C-alpha cells in the first residue's frame, strides 16, 4: 500500500486531529531517550493518537489487513529504542489517552488507560491513602502503559518489586484487532490463579504481542512515614557489605541506592545545595512504614552502617529527605556535569548483577572506562543489584562514539559473565536484542513461537526484544 494511501485511510478512520502525517511532524517521533536513536533515528510512516479501544482496534485491523508495522509508544522516555518504527510503520502515541477509569478503593484497585502519567496516578490515589509502588526515576513523565510494556520498576523495587506484581489484568488489542482480556481485568479480585498467566506474559512484552489499552492495577496502602539514612564510605567494598548486613538484621528498606565518586561529583555540580560529601561511595537507604517502625529501623541502619561508613546521616525532616532523594533522582541526566563539553548517553545503562559482585563490577566498569578513555558515572539500585552506568562523551565526535559503543558492549558482556542480566528494568527494545541468544539460549526459540501465535504476520513492533 502506498504511503499516501495509508495516511489518507488513517485520517478517514480517526479524523485529522488524531493523525500526524506531515514529514516534519513524523520526525519528532524518530527518537526516544536511547543513544541508538541519536545515531539512527527512525521515522514512522504515520502517527496516530487514539483515545479509545475502538480507535486502536480500527488502526490495528487496518495494519493487519495491509501488513503494516504497528509500534506502540508512551511518553517516549524509554532508553532502548523500543517505541521507534525504525523501518517505518504506524506509531500509536498512547500518551494522550490518560484517563483514570475507576479507583476502586474498597478493593484496593485502580483501572487506567495507558497514557496516565505515573506521578499523576499516585496523586489521585493519595486521596484514598493508596499508592502504586513501583517508582521509576521518570515518574513525572513516564506513562503507566510504558511501565507495563517494559515491566519497569525503579528506586523502591527492593521492597515493592516491579510493575508485574501489581497488574491484576489487562485489556489488549491483538494483532488482528481482536480485544483480549487477561487475568482479572473483568474481575475485582486480588488473588486469581485461574488459567495460564497471560497477564504476566504481556507485562514486559514491549509491544511485540499486542497493544495494552487498559490496565487493572493493584494498589497498596500508602506508608505514613519515611526516613532516609545516608552513609558515606571511603572504601567501595564497604557499601555492598552494609547492604547485606542490613538485610541480615531483618530489615527490608524501601530503597537502597548507591552513588559512586563520579555520581557524587555530578550531583554536587548539578545542585550544589545538596552538598554530598566527597567519598568513594554513598548509600542512600530509605525505610518507610509506621512512625515507630521507621524510627526503629532508621536507628538500627545508622548503627549497622556506622560500623563501616565514615559518617551516617539519618534524616526524617521532609526537606532534607527530599534533597537527598532528589540528588539521587537527578543523577541520570546530571551525570553530564562531570565533563563540560560532554553529555551522558543512555547505552549500557541498566545491567543487573548479583549483590555479592557489585563492588567488583563497579571497579570493572571503571577499568573499562579507563581502557577506552571514557568517563563513566555509576549509580543505581544496589539493593537489588541494578547498576546504572552513564558514559559521558561528546556524542558528536565519531571517534568517541565508536569507542563508547565498544565500551557498552563490554559492559553488557560483563553483566552476563557475572551471572547477571543486560537489563534490570529498562527493557531490551532494539538496543539489547543482540544479547538475547547469549542470555536465554533455547528459550529464545520459544519466545519467537509465542510471538508467532500472537502475531502471525509479524507486524507488532518487529525487531525488538529478541
Amino acid at each position, binding site marked *: 500500500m502506498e504511503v499516501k494511501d495509508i495516511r489518507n485511510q488513517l485520517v478517514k478512520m480517526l479524523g485529522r486531529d488524531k493523525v500526524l502525517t506531515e514529514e516534519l511532524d513524523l*520526525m*519528532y517521533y524518530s527518537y526516544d531517550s536511547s543513544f541508538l536513536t541519536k545515531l539512527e533515528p527512525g521515522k514512522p510512516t504515520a502517527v496516530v493518537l487514539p483515545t479509545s479501544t475502538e480507535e486502536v482496534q480500527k488502526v490495528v485491523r487496518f495494519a493487519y489487513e495491509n501488513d503494516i508495522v504497528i509500534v506502540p509508544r508512551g511518553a517516549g522516555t524509554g532508553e532502548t529504542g523500543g517505541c521507534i518504527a525504525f523501518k517505518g510503520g504506524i506509531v500509536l502515541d498512547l500518551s494522550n489517552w490518560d484517563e483514570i477509569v475507576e479507583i476502586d478503593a474498597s478493593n484496593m484497585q485502580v483501572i487506567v488507560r495507558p497514557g496516565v502519567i505515573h*506521578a499523576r496516578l499516585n496523586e489521585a490515589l493519595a486521596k484514598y491513602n493508596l499508592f502504586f509502588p513501583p517508582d521509576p526515576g*521518570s515518574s513525572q*513523565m513516564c506513562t503507566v502503559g510504558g511501565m507495563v510494556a517494559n515491566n519497569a520498576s525503579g528506586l523502591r523495587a527492593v521492597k515493592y518489586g516491579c510493575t508485574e506484581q501489581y497488574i491484576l489484568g489487562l485489556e489488549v488489542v491483538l494483532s488482528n484487532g481482536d480485544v483480549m482480556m487477561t487475568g482479572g481485568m473483568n474481575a475485582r479480585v486480588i488473588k486469581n490463579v485461574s488459567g495460564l498467566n497471560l497477564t504476566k506474559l504481556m507485562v514486559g512484552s514491549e509491544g511485540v504481542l499486542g497493544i495494552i489499552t487498559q490496565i487493572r492495577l493493584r494498589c497498596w496502602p500508602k506508608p505514613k512515614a519515611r526516613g532516609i539514612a545516608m552513609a558515606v564510605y571511603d572504601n567501595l567494598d564497604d557499601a555492598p557489605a552494609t547492604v547485606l548486613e542490613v538485610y541480615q538484621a531483618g530489615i527490608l528498606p524501601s530503597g537502597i541506592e548507591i552513588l559512586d565518586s563520579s555520581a557524587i561529583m555530578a550531583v554536587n555540580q548539578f545542585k550544589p545545595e545538596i552538598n554530598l560529601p566527597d567519598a568513594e561511595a554513598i548509600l542512600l537507604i530509605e525505610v518507610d512504614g509506621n512512625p515507630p517502625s521507621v524510627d526503629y529501623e532508621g536507628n538500627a541502619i545508622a548503627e549497622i552502617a556506622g560500623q563501616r561508613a565514615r559518617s551516617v546521616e539519618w534524616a526524617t525532616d521532609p526537606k532534607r529527605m527530599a534533597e537527598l532523594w532528589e540528588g539521587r533522582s537527578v543523577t541520570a*541526566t546530571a551525570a553530564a556535569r562531570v565533563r563540560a563539553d560532554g553529555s551522558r548517553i543512555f547505552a549500557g545503562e541498566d545491567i543487573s548483577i548479583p549483590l555479592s559482585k557489585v563492588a567488583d563490577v563497579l571497579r570493572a566498569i571503571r577499568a573499562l572506562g579507563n581502557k577506552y578513555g571514557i568517563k563513566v558515572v555509576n549509580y543505581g539500585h544496589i539493593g537489588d543489584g541494578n547498576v546504572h552506568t552513564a558514559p559521558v562523551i561528546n556524542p558528536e565526535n565519531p571517534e568517541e562514539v565508536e569507542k563508547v559503543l565498544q565500551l557498552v558492549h563490554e559492559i553488557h558482556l560483563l553483566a552476563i559473565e557475572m551471572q547477571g542480566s543486560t537489563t534490570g528494568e529498562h527493557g531490551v527494545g532494539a538496543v539489547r536484542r543482540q544479547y538475547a541468544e547469549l542470555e536465554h539460549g533455547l528459550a529464545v526459540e520459544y519466545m519467537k513461537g509465542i510471538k508467532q501465535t500472537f502475531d502471525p504476520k509479524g507486524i507488532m513492533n518487529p525487531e525488538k526484544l529478541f
Partner: protein
Amino acid sequence: MEFKELPPVKDQIMKCVRCGKCRSVCPVFAEIRNETAAPRGHVFMVQMLRDGIVEPDEAVAERLTTCLLCETCSVNCPSGIDIHELNAAARSYIYEKNPSLAKELVFDSLWTRPGLLRTSTKFLWGAQKTGLQSLARAIGLTKILPGDLPRAERMLTNVPVRSGRSQVSEINPARGERKYRVGYFLGCATDMFHPSVARATVDILTWHGCEVIVPRDTKCCGQPHIANGKMETARSLAAHNVKIFNSYDLDYIVTDCASCSAALSHKNMKFLLGGLKIEDQAMAFSEKAMDLTVFLTEVLDIEVPNAEIARKVKVTWHDPCHLANAQGVKQAPRELLKRIPGVEFVEMANANSCCGGSGTYCITHHDLSMKILDKKMERAMETGASKLVTCCPSCIMQLNFGAQRHKWNAEVVHIVDLLSPFYKALPKKAASQ
C-alpha cells in the same frame, strides 16, 4: 555570528538526552499533547536545522513558534540546556532566510522608534474611540497581520492618551538626601499602557532617596524581537540601550517590567552581545540592572510610608515567567507585598505557571494562549483574592482579559499600583526615609 557557531547551538544541543522531563512541565505541551510541542522536540528540530536535515522555512518556524519562550523547560532541564535560547536562535536563523515585510514594518520600522511607536499607540486609541478599528476590521486590514490577530484584537483596551515618558522628567532629584543615582528603564508597554505605573515608580524611587534618570532615548528592550526572530534588531537595540545608560554615572538600573528586567539581565546580555566588542560594556550594564521588586526589597529595604491610609485588601501574586524563570526572582515580590500595609497575601497554586500571554504570543497563537490562560484563571480565582498582582504589562493585559473572560470581579494590577497610593498621599518635599 553564524547560526551553527552561536553558543547554545554549538554547545548545548548535544547535551539533550531527550529524557522528557520538559514534557512534564511545558504549558504548551499540556495543551497540544503530542511530541511536536515537546521542548525536547524543539531541541531536536534545532539540531535538524543545524545539520541541514531540514530547511530553515516557515514550516519549521511554525512548529518552533508554538513555544511561549516561558523558560519553564530550561529551568527544569536536568542537563542544564537553555532550550528557549536554542529556540530563539533558530527563529532568527529562519527569519534571516525568510524575511517578511510585515515583520520589518512592525519590528524594525516601528518598534525601534519609541516616538513612532507611541504615535501609533495613540492612533490605536483614537481608532478605538472613533470606530476606525471596526472599519479596519470590516475591510479586512487586520487579516494581513500575523496569526490570530482578528480574534486577538478584542484584547486591546484602554490605551491611554498620554504616554508615561511624557509624564516623567529626564532627571528626577531624590527627595531628601540622595542615596543612589538610578537609571529607570522605562519599557514600551509601561510607557504606552501603564503611564501611571511609570509616574508612581519615579515617585517611589525618589521618595526613598534615589535620583532617578529616565534616559529620553531609551529604546525597546528587544524581547518582542527575540520572540519574533529579529535577533539582529534585538542586538542593536540592546547595544543602543547599553551605551545610553552607560553614558550616565549610575549606581543601579531598574525597571518595573519583568520582561525588560529579563532582557537587561546578565544572561540575556550574554546571549545577545556575548563575543561582540560591546560585551564588556554590556556586562558592566547588566551588573547594575535589576527588577524593581528586587531593588526595593534587597537594596533599598523599604518601609512603605503613610500606613494609616491602608485599606485591607486580599491579593494574590502571578509570577511572570521573565521574572521567576528567566531571573529566578520569586521571593522579592512576595516580600514587597508583605510590606504593603493592609495587604493580605494568599498564594495561588502554581503561581509561576505561565499565563499564556508572552508578549505577542497571545496574538499570534490566540486560541492556544486562551487555553493556557483559562487554567491560570481557575487557580487565581480559587484564592478568593480581590486583586491579582503581577509586574509584567504583557501578563497584566492577558490576565485582565482572563478576568473578563471568566467574569471574575477582581482587579488585575501592577505591584506598583498597590504601592502608589501611599506615595501620592505624601507631601511633595517629604524627607528621605
